[in-house]
């Protein structure tokens, strides 16, 4: 435990101290220092953005505040007095409530059980659960976050990703917390849902609750936050009032002096070439006859509200969903009933659910990276011994190209931060040299710098002759990356935008079913 230094605080010394304060926080993992003498403070009634690149240490700091991990050294203060946060119960007792980046919900349980997991379901006749009151209280909370129609009895596993995210927020709001920490809650939310969330945050902030808000979407920062703290490499870069920074100066602080972020668009400079991917009449339980073409050299966006087609098109193309219709790759009809056939046909998927569908967290970075191309590393088709040396050098090459930040290629993928984990998934398909890339929200939870890298990657994949299909929950991304955007509403294409016609507004209007742009 380090001795608390008497540093000049920005806060006035008259009050007992800020609502929450972290001093000199250090967290060591084997081979990594995830937090390096980090300082942070939160005032009652403010929304405080905690920003930083992937792997900067945001989640680690939050986990320490939540009692999920123990700091190697450092102190936590509440109202100016030192406290111990040794486990989640203690954090809750101190009034700290957290939406973690991953794993906030138990999918097998109902919405009500998840929302009230911290607070308790309530009892009647001594021991029995009082379901009626539990459902009533849950409904009230769901009401507040804009999900009035969600049945509290529904199993969370039956919800869409965005609904799950909102339920996680409802869970954090359910407790009588003074500090609410949201670690990338907006990753899979739609703009309207983000707005609902923000208005709730503002309302509660006015009641005196302090919010810590982590996001990689910088526009959100300026929408909702009072102050901004930027982290880099586990340490503090600085804390500012929101008004002191603008988008560009914030980015400079985030990425550091040496790196510069390209602000240019990543759209094509050369005309697209031959058609690589063609789908005709995709029809299933959501899709109602979708036609689609993607050419070599082209990045094609597919946009829709959740559950109305964009994700479903990707899943259908990749054989994850049963649909009728025809898929042609380079003009040849391919029968794609499962992912294996999709991969064999030259398709690649960067799935939205990175942990559940993109990675094997207990395997090494190398093993994850070569998962789709083991065939090209085996000695022969009979013994099938793996040539590890070649694996190592090729993975190292690709990961260097992606500027992966890791403790070594033999480290388990589990130890990577969100953005770096995504790079491993993308690296997998670079090693496979796929022809069609299906990027399903590839920039979710990715920092501003890596986002730009991924845009650049999508572009260079296309430039090198691949067709790229792109979806996102951030509509600005379509504008920056896509050459063409298909907008779906209720399972059907309602419009196609190209070039300068691609705007956030036009996409939004179309996806709400308003045909006239």
């Amino acid at each position, binding site marked *: 435990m380090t001795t608390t230094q008497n540093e000049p605080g920005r806060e006035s010394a008259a009050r007992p101290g800020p609502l929450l304060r972290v001093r000199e926080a250090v967290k060591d993992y084997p081979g990594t220092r995830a937090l390096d003498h980090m300082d942070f403070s939160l005032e009652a009634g403010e929304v405080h953005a905690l920003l930083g690149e992937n792997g900067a240490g945001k989640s680690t700091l939050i986990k320490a505040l*939540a009692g*999920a991990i123990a700091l190697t050294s450092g102190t936590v203060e509440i109202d100016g007095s030192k406290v111990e946060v040794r486990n*989640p*119960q203690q*954090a*809750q007792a101190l009034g700290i409530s*957290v939406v*973690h980046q991953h*794993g*906030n*919900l*138990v*999918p*097998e*349980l109902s919405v009500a*059980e998840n929302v009230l*997991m*911290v607070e*308790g*379901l309530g*009892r009647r006749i001594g*021991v*029995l*659960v009082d379901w009626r009151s539990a459902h009533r209280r849950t409904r009230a909370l769901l009401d507040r976050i804009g999900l009035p*129609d*969600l049945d509290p009895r*529904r199993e*969370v*596993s*039956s*919800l*869409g*990703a*965005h*609904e*799950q995210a909102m339920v996680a927020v409802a*869970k954090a709001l359910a407790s009588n917390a003074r500090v609410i920490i949201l670690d990338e809650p907006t990753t899979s939310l739609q703009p309207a849902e983000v707005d609902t969330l923000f208005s709730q945050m503002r309302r509660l902030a006015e009641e005196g609750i302090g919010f810590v808000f982590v996001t990689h979407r910088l526009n959100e920062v300026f929408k909702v936050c009072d102050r901004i703290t930027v982290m880099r490499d586990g340490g503090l870069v600085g804390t500012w009032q929101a008004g002191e920074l603008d988008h560009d100066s914030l980015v400079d602080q985030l990425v550091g002096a040496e790196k510069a972020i390209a602000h240019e668009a990543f759209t094509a400079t050369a005309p697209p070439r031959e058609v690589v991917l063609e789908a005709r009449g995709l029809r299933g*339980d*959501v899709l109602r006859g979708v036609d689609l073409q993607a050419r070599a050299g082209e990045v094609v966006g597919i946009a829709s*509200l*959740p*559950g*109305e087609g964009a994700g*479903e098109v990707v*899943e259908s193309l990749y054989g*994850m*969903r049963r649909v009728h219709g025809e898929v042609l790759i380079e003009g040849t009809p391919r029968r794609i009933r499962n992912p294996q056939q999709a991969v064999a046909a030259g398709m690649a998927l960067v*799935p*939205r*659910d990175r*942990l*559940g*569908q993109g990675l094997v967290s207990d395997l090494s970075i190398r093993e994850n990276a070569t998962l789709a191309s083991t065939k090209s590393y085996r000695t022969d088709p009979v013994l099938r011994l793996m040539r590890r040396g070649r694996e190592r050098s090729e993975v190292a090459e690709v990961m260097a190209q992606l500027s992966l930040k890791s403790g070594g290629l033999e480290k388990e993928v589990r130890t990577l931060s969100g953005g770096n984990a995504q790079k491993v998934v993308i690296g997998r398909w670079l090693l496979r040299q796929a022809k069609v890339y299906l990027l399903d929200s590839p920039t979710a939870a990715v920092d501003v710098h890596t986002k730009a890298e991924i845009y650049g990657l999508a572009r260079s994949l296309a430039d090198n002759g691949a067709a790229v299909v792109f979806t996102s929950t951030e509509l600005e991304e379509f504008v920056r990356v896509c050459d063409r955007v298909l907008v779906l509403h*209720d399972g059907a294409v309602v419009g196609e935008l190209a070039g300068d016609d691609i705007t956030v507004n036009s996409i939004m209007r179309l996806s709400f079913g308003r045909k006239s742009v």
Partner: protein
Amino acid sequence: MSSSTAVAESPRATGPRRETSTSDKLIDVVSRYGTIASLVACVAIFSLLKPDVFATSQNFFNILNQVSILGIIALGLTVALVQGLFDLSLAGMATLGGYLACKWLAEGTFGSPAVAVLVVLALALVIGAFNGVVVAYGGVSAFIVTLAVGSILTGVVLGVSDSQTILSGIPDGFLIMGQGEIGPIPMPVVFLAIVAVVLYVFLEQTQLGRHMYAIGGNAETARLSGIPVKRYALIALGISAACAALGGMIVAANLGVGRPQGVGDTYLLDAFAAAFIGASTLRPGRFHILGTVIGVLLIGVINNGLSIMGVETFWQYAVRGIILLLAVFAASFLVMRRR
């Protein structure tokens, strides 16, 4: 674990009028009720083949009686499995429980059978909680902990008994647990019913039970939500051990002998089978009390039916395996199809 499924499944709430196809509904029904249907089919077939013997109310209670011990043990195991904890010590625990009760009563250590039973149950809770401590605080997998503890218990009961079976001196007050009847209902069945109801309410209707499902679903989430996860391993394995000991005592009371070996082993695999069959019923993928009851009944009906038909023993093994396979297959096949 299965957050993957969540994403692939289409959200129904937000999408406008997306009607579920009737085939989807049908598949859903079949997968949920496949095991029950198999149970009904077995009953129907045996009733047709041996109407005078199988389809009698006497045989109905007979089947219940025959499965009651398996049922009690399997129900306790279900609680452990809800949290993903394999309890292999229940074989040794059942043997120990039955033996100790007989020994203490035969030797007069405890005058009252009720006291002896309660002491054995308390001891079982302690041993089960010990399993839980090693699992939760030592971080060893339940499989290996309970296997090791099972071995210790086996040794202890062999040592205590000097391998001798106890037959005389067991008071009637104890034997009644296995041989008595309430009205037409044999006592073991009464115990089965009590255990089933209590554990059903416990798992489905109490906060503790719901926490157990939360832990079984995602222990890390449960921990981060402030649920004292470790403590629940003690509770779950304690309950499992107590049920095993109760089962062992009922076996002993039923036959009137305190055997120092092999009592629990008979039920070990069948208890797992019943719980796993149950996990393919009604709520596919979850262990739950109702499912386990159905699993136990399925096993009981198959065993009873085949034995009543006088089927050769080797055929009993084989046919039993085939029926189990078909029953679970019926339930699961369609679940798979859907995805």
